């Protein structure tokens, strides 16, 4: 049982994911839970990009002396573009549900909402 060695970027991404999940588990305010979810998403995106990084290479825009051998992996970048947009879509959707809940129950606390619903 030794803690595996991972790089700085992996560490940063993983910490974001864990901090976000902590927020989702512990917090009771709905907006806070959504903010935490969005932090998790940012962490996952950072993780994907770091998986595609290759030390010492430059961005995959093939002009001015940057050939195929000098560029990082472009696929994760394309994936993350998609994931970012999906993330903001989910956030917007979730916030409008939260607004509806607030209009119905007058609170954003999940415990309170449960109690009001019975």
């Amino acid at each position, binding site marked *: 049982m030794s*803690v*595996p*060695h*991972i*790089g700085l*970027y*992996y560490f940063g991404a*993983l910490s974001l*994911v*864990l901090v976000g*999940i*902590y927020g989702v*588990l*512990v917090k009771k305010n709905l907006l806070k839970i959504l903010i935490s979810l969005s932090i998790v998403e940012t962490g996952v995106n950072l*993780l994907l990009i*770091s*998986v*595609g*990084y*290759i*030390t010492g290479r430059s*961005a*995959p*825009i*093939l*002009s001015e002396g940057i050939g*195929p051998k000098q*560029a990082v*992996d*472009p*696929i994760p*970048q*394309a*994936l993350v*573009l*998609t994931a*970012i*947009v*999906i993330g*903001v*879509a*989910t956030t*917007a*959707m979730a*916030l*409008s*549900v939260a*607004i*509806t809940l607030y209009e119905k129950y007058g609170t954003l606390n999940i415990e309170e909402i449960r109690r009001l619903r019975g």
Partner: protein
Amino acid sequence: MVSVLKRSLAIITLLIIGYWLAQGLAGVPFGQDRMLVGKYYLENVKAQTGAVNAVTAIVVNYRGFDTLGEVTVLFIASTGVGALLWRRKKKRTAKTEGSVVLRTGSELLFPFILMFGTYIFIHGHLTPGGGFPGGATIATAFLILYMAFVDYEIPHRLFEPLEGLAGMGYVLVGLIGLAIGSYFLFDWIWQTWHWGAANLGRLFSGGFIPVIYTLIGLKVGTELSGIVDSMLTEEVRE
């Protein structure tokens, strides 16, 4: 007391998850060349799609199906937000007008931000950026207007049909590809007609990438400003 218990329980769970994930990540070391399909893209992107920016070529051309789905997700979000916050009569309820600086500045900046957004999505195949940041920039322009003026609203009659039309345009470009090149989302402009092969690396190249990015930019801009509008207008009670 309970709170402390809860927090420590959550932290223990997280440490287990984190350890588990780190175990997995250790098997994928950072910074190494593990490209397989990626190498193919980098080697063939210029010849096969006419784009210089490999990420754009992947997003629009090689993995265009994903992007179609992504546009759909944003469309769903704008539709869903519209459906949930739908009221028979809606109006802006902001009370404080923006300061003079904000109002004048936003009026001055508005056309320039629009132009910048357009620039970003038209040049997507050459420089970083593309339809999504471009569209988001356009939405930011409208966001600034919303913040500066208490009664500003986007032209709904124009925006909602535009949103639908841009989406239909994307699918239609794909269907034309199906008719011409017998594959859905086939890049007929580049691969059948060879337009723009002479000026690789300039604006008029890249096959259908600029066309699709323009459609995406329009769609993303209208959708995101539609979401902002749905969130900022509230029900009027008579």
